[in-house]
């Protein structure tokens, strides 16, 4: 780890800033006095010590499609899951075709080679630990 030397002048200013900060914190504590929501140690949740392992949202697959998205078209030999570091059940399907009706009574077809769905249920790795969940790609 590299160290940064603080010149005396800057250090002095820093001490002055700390002094101002201390007054501000004291005022803030006064304002919170008697608040039912205040934590018992008078430290806001944002200032509480916490872990920092990243979020539990799944990672996308690393591969990019021709449009630059972390997406693989459904098809033989393609990655079926949209979640990386994953093990579990997968459903992948595409090229839906069908018909429907809009609220004006117009008959409108749906479906294209890229009309796809994917279901993933199982374990995935995020926040440096195994997570479990069920997800759908629409």
């Amino acid at each position: 780890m590299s160290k940064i030397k603080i010149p005396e002048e800057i250090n002095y200013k820093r001490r002055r800033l700390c002094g101002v900060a201390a007054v501000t914190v004291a005022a803030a504590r006064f304002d919170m006095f008697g608040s039912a929501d205040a934590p018992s140690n008078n430290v806001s949740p944002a200032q509480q010590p916490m872990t920092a392992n990243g979020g539990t949202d799944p990672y996308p697959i690393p591969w990019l499609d021709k449009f630059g998205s972390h997406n693989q078209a459904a098809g033989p030999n393609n990655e079926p899951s949209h979640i990386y570091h994953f093990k579990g059940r997968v459903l992948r399907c595409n090229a839906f075709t069908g018909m429907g009706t809009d609220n004006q009574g117009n008959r409108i077809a749906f479906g294209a080679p890229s009309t796809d769905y994917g279901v993933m249920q199982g374990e995935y790795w995020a926040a440096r630990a195994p997570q479990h969940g069920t997800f759908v790609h629409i």
Partner: protein
Amino acid sequence: MVPANEIHDFHPPIAASGLFWVVPVPEGALTISEDGNSLTLEMQNVRVIDQPRFPALDSIGTPARMTFKLACKSTGEPVKYEDASKHFRFTGTRASCQLEAHVEVPSIGFSWKSDPLNASKAAFAIIGEEVNGRYYDN
């Protein structure tokens, strides 16, 4: 909904992580048969966007809602896809899938409802188990 004259394209937004059009499945929305050969996913009022000009980078997404039912069944025909360079292995079977959906775009007063489930079909579908990423070598 058909590429040549596509007028709507419904999907979730891409996540900040790059996770592509994936949303969590609520408890109870996914039903799997005891033998694991059939899967039904039903979700109501999924928050999606209508983005007809995707994948254009400047394509506008209009908030929309989607309710859908996806039903898939294994055909029993075995399938195995594996790519060691991409660290994924899928083992499963081909499947048949059908979809019915209802979409609404409140801001433009548009809604559309598909014909019943059995009036649709998917040209490609697979169902099975996958491992990828850190789970591939374990």
